[in-house]
């Protein structure tokens, strides 16, 4: 059974095991022999030899997955559905969060605003319509501070959570603290930070009453400047400021510095793309291969180093600082750079990217080179070959046969160094050599008019002999 399996050149596992060197010599031989018996397997085997086993395994499983995706009809239906659900859940989630956040922060702020507004209007004896009557009543009963908080408290208890309605006689500040519970604390603290930038937060926490008093003073001050709209802004801003400061404080970012070099000769690589995997944060290395990159300080970040002609490397971010990354040359990728043609064309007719390389034209007066040629010209030479071929020395052949031959024509026109470049058989080679030796003379090639030794390459064509009836008779 095992042997049977090993004989199977269809089995992908066998290829992997073979290239991972997991087979013994004997097993390798069996597998190689099996592969040799089948062209499909042979070609695949040749292809796989270009990569290492891990790359092959990775690529094939990637392809398998793709085909599965391509062919599975079920997934195509369920996927969009899942997507919509996910989107809906996400939207709902975000919606509720925003709603909750707004609710918890806004209420106390609004309340505070109202209080301040009314407060200030009292002091200025404002003439706001809705508030006017009640305010006047309040003034009549209690100058400013006593009754007002009571009414406020009632309002608060309507909107807000259970309120401890014990100390109605307390000041606005204390009722604020009770009603708004923690969030209102925050707000008051925040607004404190706003107005008294230098006030130390610890003090505020230690002594609410004192601070809130200060806040109130500040508010009333602000109110007297009739700057309620500005205040609304300043009071709503604190919602954000603590969050921002938290990000700066707790999610540390590390700066990674390092250098990218080529593993082959350790030269620095400039312009290497360095990317935090899965994000759009990245940088490129400078001319000395150095780079500097801010990354989140969690261990999960992975840096990717990519460079044309080199394999992409990945590096986990740990406590590394000043890393040196060596990239290996990617031989396959270098194949991608190909020369696709040469010549001239109009820009307008050009599609695709073309790089032009200017070839040095060399010394200004390039020598005038004239190659050697047969005395009577090439066509006469061809005729000679056609007529003088001695078919008796050649084996029988049906299709035209080409022999490629090279030789040197010396300054004095003598022919030396006859060499067969492409042979089709010994008989033909001999015949070619004979034809050239016995054939028409050659005029030597010249350089600026001076005869020189020069090599010539010829392709000689043998036409199959058409047997005439005459010759047939002769042979008989």
């Amino acid at each position, binding site marked *: 059974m095992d042997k049977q*399996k090993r004989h199977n050149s*269809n089995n*992908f596992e066998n290829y992997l095991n073979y290239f991972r060197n997991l087979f013994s010599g004997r097993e390798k031989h069996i597998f*190689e022999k099996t592969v040799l*018996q089948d062209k499909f397997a042979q*070609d695949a085997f040749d292809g796989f030899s270009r*990569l290492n086993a891990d790359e092959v395994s990775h690529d094939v499983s990637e*392809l398998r997955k793709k085909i599965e995706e391509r062919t599975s009809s079920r997934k195509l239906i369920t996927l969009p559905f899942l997507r919509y659900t996910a989107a809906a859940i996400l939207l709902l989630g975000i919606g509720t969060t925003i709603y909750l956040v707004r609710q918890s922060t806004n209420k106390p702020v609004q309340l505070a605003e109202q209080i301040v507004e009314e407060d200030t209007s009292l002091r200025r004896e404002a003439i706001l319509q809705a508030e006017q009557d009640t305010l006047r009543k309040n003034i009549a009963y209690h100058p400013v501070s006593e009754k007002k908080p009571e009414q406020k408290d009632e309002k608060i208890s309507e909107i807000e959570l259970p309120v401890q309605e014990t100390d109605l006689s307390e000041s606005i500040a204390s009722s604020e603290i009770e009603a708004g519970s923690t969030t209102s604390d925050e707000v008051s603290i925040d607004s404190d930070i706003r107005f008294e930038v230098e006030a130390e937060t610890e003090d505020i926490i230690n002594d609410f009453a004192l601070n809130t008093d200060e806040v109130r003073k500040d508010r009333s001050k602000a109110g007297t400047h009739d700057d309620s709209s500005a205040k609304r802004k300043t009071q709503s801003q604190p919602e954000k400021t603590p969050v921002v400061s938290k990000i700066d404080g707790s999610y540390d970012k590390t700066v990674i510095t390092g250098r990218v070099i080529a593993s082959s000769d350790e030269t620095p690589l400039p312009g290497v793309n360095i990317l935090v995997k899965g994000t759009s944060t990245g940088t490129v290395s400078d001319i000395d291969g150095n780079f500097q990159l801010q990354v989140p300080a969690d261990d999960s970040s992975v840096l990717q180093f990519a460079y044309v002609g080199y394999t992409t490397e990945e590096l986990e971010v740990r406590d590394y600082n000043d890393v040196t990354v060596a990239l290996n040359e990617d031989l396959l990728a270098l*194949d991608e750079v190909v020369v696709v043609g040469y010549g001239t064309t109009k820009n307008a007719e050009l599609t695709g990217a073309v790089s032009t390389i200017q070839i040095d034209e060399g010394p200004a007066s390039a020598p005038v080179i004239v190659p050697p040629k047969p005395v009577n010209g090439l066509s006469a030479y061809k005729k000679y070959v056609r007529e003088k071929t001695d078919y008796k020395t050649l084996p029988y052949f049906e299709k035209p046969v080409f022999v490629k031959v090279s030789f040197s024509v010396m300054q004095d026109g003598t022919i030396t160094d006859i060499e067969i470049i492409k042979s089709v058989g010994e008989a033909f080679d001999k015949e070619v050599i004979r034809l050239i030796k016995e054939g028409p003379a050659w005029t030597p090639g010249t350089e600026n008019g001076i005869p020189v030794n020069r090599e010539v390459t010829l392709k000689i064509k043998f036409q199959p002999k058409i047997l005439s009836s005459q010759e047939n008779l002769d042979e008989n």
Partner: protein
Amino acid sequence: MSEKQVLEELLVSQKNSALNVVSDEQLISRYRSEKELEILGILYQRYIHLVYGVCLKYLKNREESKDIVMQIFEKLIEEIEKFDIVNFRSWLYVLTKHYCLRKLQKDSSAMKKFLQYSDEQFMESTTDLSPLDEYPEIDRSDALNKCIGKLTNEQRECIELFYFQKKCYQEISDTMDIPLKKVKSYIQNGKRNLKICIENENGQTKTT
């Protein structure tokens, strides 16, 4: 419902690829009657690594090869309707190779590569047996001996070591001190030359 069960069974059988119970041709006829792309996928998965390997060999480029493997599958969906396929594996090989060569042909710079391969004829069967495979227990007939004698030194030595001493490429490469690639090509070429030579010998003896 039963259809799905069958499909699942097929998938399982696909995974234990040693036990490919359902033949390729059965799968094709199933696909023809049911038009279920999944069946074709299963069929293609059986040879996908070979297809990828062939692409790698001819295109010499990883990414391009992966693309081509996917394109060949699309081509397969198209072509499978048109032909009466007797041997799917060989047919797929021809399709793959043809597709790769066409791809090379389009790329004008690759014309040379194409010419290098195009003179090989496309065949109905991919089996490439030589007398060496057919008679493993060495009946070194006169013809075989004679033909082995005609091989170049390297080819002869490699063939000897591989077929008669049952060495693997690596071992041969070590003992002869030549690169592994060379060993492979010597054996392949030697094998082909032997086949041609022996066929000629047999032909001559038959006619006389």
